[in-house]
């Protein structure tokens, strides 16, 4: 066994004297060449293996774009990408209210504070991957404060009479919580302890918030607006 450090030979940190010795050895000792080839082959194998891992480049570019050019910049409405912690906190609110049977992953990919419903819908649709209707809750004392979304899931946050309510949409099946069915303007609603649910065009909607009566009013308005789109 020779005493050449082939890593130093490869990275150029070897002293000139040592390098000369190594070069001589490579000419005369086949085993030295095998060692060097072994190191090179090893590095090549590692690199090749690591580069086989799939990278969601399209998703990452969307994230980058959302940071550099928030979609509301044209309208001048307030837009702010929340720090991850805040996004997670908002997601946690939705998760606890919705329950794990509906949304098992509380991580929300993107969160945006926005007051314009059309912009919110466009942002949410991009992240959710399905058509998200703009919802204004016309006729109610409601203010849109933000939206968050991930693949297959979108949520609008509204302040209604000073309290926070969520209108969520998802493409995965809703859980079968016990509740009361109610038919209103041709739409079936399920009123359950967690909120009000309904389905429209394969999207499962749910309204959550502190007051039962307000939840119903929100659901009624949201369902009407969503069905028009």
């Amino acid at each position, binding site marked *: 066994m020779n*005493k050449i450090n*082939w890593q130093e030979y490869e990275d150029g940190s070897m002293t000139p004297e040592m390098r000369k010795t190594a070069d001589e050895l490579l000419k005369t000792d086949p085993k030295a060449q*095998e060692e060097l080839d072994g190191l090179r082959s090893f590095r090549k*194998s590692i690199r090749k293996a*690591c580069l086989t891992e799939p990278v*969601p480049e399209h998703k990452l570019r969307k994230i980058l774009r959302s940071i550099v050019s928030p979609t509301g910049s044209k309208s001048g409405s307030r837009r702010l*990408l929340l720090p991850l912690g805040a996004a997670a906190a908002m997601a946690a609110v939705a998760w606890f209210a919705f329950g794990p049977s509906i949304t098992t992953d509380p991580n929300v990919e993107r969160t945006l504070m926005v007051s314009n419903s059309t912009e919110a819908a466009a942002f949410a649709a991009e992240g959710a991957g399905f058509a998200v209707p703009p919802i204004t809750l016309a006729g109610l004392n409601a203010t849109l404060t933000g939206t968050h979304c991930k693949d297959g899931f979108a949520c609008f946050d509204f302040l209604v009479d000073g309290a926070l309510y969520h209108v969520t949409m998802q493409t995965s099946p809703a859980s079968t919580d016990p509740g009361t069915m109610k038919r209103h303007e041709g739409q079936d609603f399920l009123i359950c302890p967690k909120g009000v649910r309904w389905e429209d065009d394969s999207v499962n909607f749910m309204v959550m918030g502190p007051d039962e009566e307000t939840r119903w009013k929100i659901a009624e308005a949201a369902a009407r607006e969503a069905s028009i789109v």
Partner: protein
Amino acid sequence: MIFGPKKGDFESSVKKELPVLYRVARRMGCNQDEAEDTVQSALIKAYQAWERFDGRHLRSWLIRILRNERLMQLRSEKPHSSLDEPGAVEAAEEPFWEEVSWRMEADRILDELENLPEVYKMAIQLCDVEQLTYEEAATAMDVPIGTVRSRLFRARAMLRKRLAPVSGQLEGALS
């Protein structure tokens, strides 16, 4: 003198580094969702600091931010978590590359790489996979160049040792 980049350059400059950041995040123990989240929060920080960036070693600068973000995440989960040295082990002395012919399956290599201590994983990832220079890797890991070199040496030795038994060709080459 090197001037900082313009704000408008951020997207075009950073775009090509996204795969690197994602792979490094994965190497720091993130699952796929966590890697995306970590990259996102690193990009937000980088964007905020872009005008203060001196324009040198963009990749290292981004990885350093990414590493800090990951560290903050780990600390919020486990207060004593660290990405630093697990022990005082440094470079082995003996050369060991004789009779090596690596024909490992990618999954096997990734599994074993995953099992290395964080600092060694990073050394391999940055130097061997992403092909950063020692100087760039040192900047990214916030350590001296000599430490990068010794960690890399050690990392390769550990990885080789772990992979050797399955190669069927390396028995006896580990002494």
